[in-house]
Structures are given as structure tokens and as C-alpha cells.
């Protein structure tokens, strides 16, 4: 068991975990913001898929990773416009529309991929890494933490920025009010619809970025259904973070590591069925919920449409 502390194992665990965690981190950060504003994006998986596909197409055709990531943001945000139009403006059911967005995204991206790339199956080159001088010389941590794609550091910084904005800025206050007590926000003269629309677009953009990361940095190519439920896991992480953005880092890395631990264990000759490991974080969360079940996990107006003057 002393192998568990070997350098190869730890590097594989931590850096693999980080790679797997990033899509979850971006998506759950976006979802967190929109949940705080009272919009539940069940369609997060759909934003990620659109983001993943467009990011791949742009990165493949322009050869630029950053343009690809940008395209992912745009695609995700565009998909969330549907959500904002139908659920925030027209007050349609958020869960129904969310499922519709997932289905359309799964079908459309698979169809487009099939029509254009099914035979050639192109892939991007390996992603560039930003190595931080000095820090990367630290054993284990240096190799795993400080030689990642630059967007990884952006993501971690973003968690703190969003956390700060939600707690310390008036925009953040508006977002939280829109989810907690929309009528109060309305009375204060801030548009609930506009606040929720921006929050939804934020979920779309970050979900799209998470999807873009999956194809550009993670897999290097697009395959249909590439997200494999990551959108749903991100929703779970966002809900468990209870409105405190930095917690999404903990959640995402935990889930990410449980996805990478099977590969890391193989490196030191331990074969473990991936099914067990992938269940672990969910079991842990359920156990925590059973032991510490408490009320008010979520904004009180979550998934409820706001109609002015209606009790």
C-alpha cells in the first residue's frame, strides 16, 4: 500500500482529477449563479454539448484553442437564450424546457458530427500547457498542479471572483434576491426578468465553456454524447455548494478525482472496477444528506416563475 504515496500515482490522481474536474467546475459555477437567481437549468447538459461541438469545430478549423473555447462560450450562451426566452420571459416550466434542450442538443450535435466528421474522425493536437516556473519544480504538486492548461487557472480564479461578486456586489445581491424573494427585488426597482435572464445566460456561457474544455483540453475530439451526464453532476455540485461559489471547486475536484482514481490505481498495479469508484461521490453525498438533512438547501423561489402581483 506504500505505493499509494508514490509520485506516479499522486501525479496521475491529482492532474487527472483536475482535468476531469474542470468541465464540472465551469458548468456548476454557471448553474450556481442561475440557481441563486431562481432558474434551474436542467438543460445544462445541453449547453455543454452545444459548447463542446462548436468549440471542436472552431478549434479544428482555425487551429486556435482559445477561439475554440470562445466558440464554446458563445454556443452555450446561445442555447441558454432559448431557456431565458421560454422560462424567464414566458414563465414556462423550467424542467420541461430543460429536458427538451438536452434532447435537442444530444440529437443535433450527434447529427451534425455524423454528417461532417463521421468518416474522418479528426482530432486536435495535444493541448498546450502553461507551466508556472519555480512552482512547477515542487515534487508531485508541481507536476500535477502547476503544469496545466491556462484555462484551469482561469476556472479556479473564476470560482473566487463569482463567489466575491455574489456576496459583495450589488449585482450579486440582485441575483440572490431574484432567487430568494423576487417580489422584494421588484419592489426595489430592479427587474427580476433581466436579472434572471443574465443569470441564465451566465449558466449557458459557463456550461458551454465546460463543454469546450471537454473536447479541446480533455478528449481532443468530439464524440456524440461526450458529456455523459456531466451536466447533471454539475447541477448536483451547484446545489450542494449552497450558494458559496468556492465550494464548487471542492465538489468538482472530488468528483473529478473519483473519475481519475481508477486510472491512477492501474498505474501502481491495482485493478479496481470503475463502477465502484464512479458511484462513490454520489453515495457520499447521499450519506451526507441522510445524516445532515436540513431545510433551505436552495433559494426559496427556485424553479418558480415570477409573476408580478401574484401571491
Amino acid at each position, binding site marked *: 500500500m506504500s505505493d499509494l504515496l508514490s509520485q506516479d500515482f499522486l501525479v496521475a490522481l491529482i492532474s487527472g482529477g483536475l482535468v476531469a474536474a474542470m468541465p464540472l467546475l465551469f458548468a456548476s459555477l454557471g448553474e450556481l449563479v442561475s440557481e441563486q437567481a431562481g432558474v*434551474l437549468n*436542467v438543460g445544462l447538459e445541453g449547453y455543454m454539448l452545444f459548447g463542446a461541438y462548436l468549440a471542436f469545430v472552431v478549434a479544428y478549423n482555425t487551429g486556435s484553442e482559445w477561439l475554440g473555447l470562445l466558440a464554446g462560450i458563445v454556443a452555450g450562451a446561445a442555447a441558454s437564450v*432559448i431557456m431565458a426566452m*421560454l422560462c424567464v420571459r*414566458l*414563465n*414556462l*416550466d423550467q*424542467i*420541461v*424546457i430543460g*429536458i*427538451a*434542450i*438536452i*434532447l*435537442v*442538443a*444530444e*440529437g*443535433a450535435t*450527434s*447529427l451534425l458530427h*455524423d*454528417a461532417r466528421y*463521421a468518416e474522418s474522425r479528426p482530432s486536435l493536437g495535444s493541448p498546450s500547457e502553461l507551466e508556472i516556473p519555480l512552482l512547477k519544480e515542487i515534487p508531485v504538486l508541481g507536476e500535477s498542479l502547476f503544469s496545466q492548461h491556462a484555462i484551469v487557472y482561469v476556472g479556479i480564479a473564476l470560482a473566487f471572483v463569482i463567489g466575491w461578486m455574489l456576496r459583495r456586489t450589488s449585482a450579486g445581491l440582485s441575483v440572490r434576491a431574484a432567487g430568494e424573494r423576487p417580489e422584494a427585488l421588484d419592489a426595489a426597482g430592479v427587474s427580476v426578468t433581466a436579472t434572471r435572464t443574465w443569470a441564465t445566460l451566465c449558466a449557458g456561457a459557463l456550461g458551454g465553456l465546460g463543454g469546450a474544455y471537454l473536447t479541446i483540453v480533455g478528449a481532443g475530439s468530439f464524440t*456524440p454524447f461526450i458529456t455523459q*451526464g456531466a451536466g*447533471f*453532476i454539475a*447541477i*448536483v455540485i451547484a*446545489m*450542494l455548494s449552497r450558494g458559496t461559489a468556492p465550494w464548487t471547486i471542492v465538489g468538482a475536484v472530488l468528483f473529478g478525482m473519483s473519475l481519475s482514481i481508477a486510472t491512477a490505481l492501474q498505474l501502481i498495479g491495482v485493478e479496481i*472496477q470503475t*463502477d*465502484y469508484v*464512479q*458511484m462513490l461521490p*454520489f*453515495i457520499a*453525498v*447521499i450519506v451526507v*444528506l*441522510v445524516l445532515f*438533512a*436540513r*431545510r433551505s*438547501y*436552495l433559494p426559496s423561489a*427556485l424553479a418558480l416563475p415570477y409573476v408580478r*402581483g*401574484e401571491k
Partner: protein
Amino acid sequence: MRARALRLGEATLVAAIPIVLALVANGILLAALGRDPFAFYGDMFERGLIEWQGFQESIIRSAPLLLIAAGLIVAFRANLWNLGADGQFLLGAALTAGLAPSLLESLGVWPMLLITMAVAAVAGGAWTLIPAILRGRYGVNEIITTLMMSFIGIGVANVLVKGPFKTDVGGVARTDVVAFDERFPLLFDTRIHLGFVIAVVAILAVHVLMTRTSLGLRLRVLGANPRAALHAGLRPVRLTVLAFAISGALIGLSGSVEILGVQGSFRADFNPAYGLLVIPLVFLARLNAIGSLVLVIAFSVIQIGGESAARQAEVTSDILFVLVGLMLLFMAVIEYLRVRLGLGMRFVPPEVAERLRPPSGEGGAATGEPRPAIGAGEVGSR
């Protein structure tokens, strides 16, 4: 009577319009991909509905979907979001496939069928217990808990199939295959199996349960207004657990039906992800069991025919996801327009229209007066 017929007509129209719009939009997508949409839809209906072989295939496909629909209706009517159908389905399927071979050996065909179905139903129902209690007692959002239990269920099903239930025969990890003549008996001279009958009976039973029994009424009250349910002396926690248990049991049973009727064995990583496809249909039918029965069979025709038409047109059959997603989007928009503009009301006599109008419509909710009181008020003001 007339109001009832009109309401049925309106419900049919409201369900049909989004389907037609989705078919049109999907056709435009096909045309954009350089395929002939008319040929595609022609193929689809020929292979899924008109050809006897294909029609049987569609009916067979509809059996597990109907059971899932039945299960979802019970939960959704009680305003409980059971989004964990895939886990419940796969657990039922894995247990059935795993237990069937040894039960066959020791007890014979019929006891095996009955026991595996019972086990699958109990497992599916039990899988909802934690989300139900957390929701009922502590108000923990059931969307997140059922989703998580679903992921765990998928994992457990695979662990079972790759471990204790694994066949000795090499290749992909799977359970021992149940021979054709030891599965569900077939109906008459068709290939349609008993599972379809079970599914239809189940969805009809759910219809009766939800519309004709006191339990159904209590569940609907719970769904409409949990606080009112509490004031009316109902026990929300118990009702929540019960609704979830029935829902999970029916969905677990659907896994059993899929194995005993179609698959015969459970291969590792088998996951048809039926849950996400059935949810839209149940909504399209506005949580009505009879409507769901019709729509699920129609969808099975589209799916079976569509898979074959997609092969013919050389597109991936994932195009069906687009079709179903679009149906759902159009349904939501149509529903909105119907309520907002009172669509279709112009052709209805005013006194009938008054009864048809949804109670929570704009303005109606503001006055909030029950209808007889309005008449009484007019008498009083004279």
C-alpha cells in the same frame, strides 16, 4: 357531455399541433442535411406502422416505455420529480436477468417470471425510499436526490452484472441468456409478448388510481398544494413515500419486462436511457394516463420506424432526439399561447368556454371568486 367531448377534442388538438410542428421542423433539418424529408417520413411510417413486422416491433418497444410512463405519472401528478427512472429501470433489469437463470433451474418458468417481476418492482420502489423520505420529512429537493440515486443504481446494476451475476461464458460481461421459450409467452401468432399486456393493464390501473380512487385524489391534492393537503388532514410524508414507491415499482417492473420480453440477458453497460424520452411524452399527454398510452405507442412507431428510416437515409438515428426535444419545446409554447390568448376558445360557446378556461388564468386568479358566487352576486345587485 358536450363540454367533455370538446375538452377531449381540444386536448387531442393541443397534443397534435406540437407533434406536427416538430415533424415539420425536423423535416427542414433533414432537408438542410440534403436528405428527402418526405422519403424519410414515408419510410418511418411504413417500417414502424404499416409493415406487420415493424408494427409488432413498435408494440414490443412500447411495453417498457408504457410502464415507465405509468410510474412517472403517479409521481408527477403528486408534483414529485422522479428523475431517477434510468437507475430504477436498470436495477430491475439487472436483478431480473441475474436471478432468472437460477430460478428457472429450481422452480420453472412461471414462478421465475412472477418472482423476478416482483423483485424488480420491489427494488425499483425501494430505490426511491431515500429521496422520498428526504423530500417528505426534510424538504430536500428530490430532483437532485433521485438523479444521484439513479447514478448509483446504474453503478450497482453494472457491479452486479460484472460480479455475482456474470456468466461463465467469455466475451463481454453479461448474465446468462434466458432462452426464448422461457421468456414471456407470446400472444397468439405474433411476436408481441405478455409484457405488453402487463404494461397496458398497469397504465390503465394508474388511470383508475389517479382519477377514481381516494388515494389518487389525495396524491393530486398533495401535488397541487402540499400545505392544503396538510390542512385537510393528509399525511404528506406518508403520501410522498407511497407515491414514490409506486412510481419506482412500476419503473423497476419495466426493467424486468425489457429483459423477459426482449433482451433475455443484461450486458454490461446496457442503458437505453428510456427515462429522458418518456418524460416528454408524459408531459405531452398532460400527465393523463390514457393520453400517454396513445402517445407512447405513437412514439414507439416513430422510434422503430425512425431507426429504420435513418439507416435508409444514412443519418444517425439520434435525429429522433431532436424530434422529441422539438415536440416538447413546441408543446410548451403552444400551452403558453393557449392559456395566454385563450386559443381555440373563440369557436366554443361562451358558457362552455367558461368551464374550459384553466382556473389559474390571468385575472381569474386575481378575483379568486368561485363561479357560483358570481351568479349570486348578480342576483344580489339587482
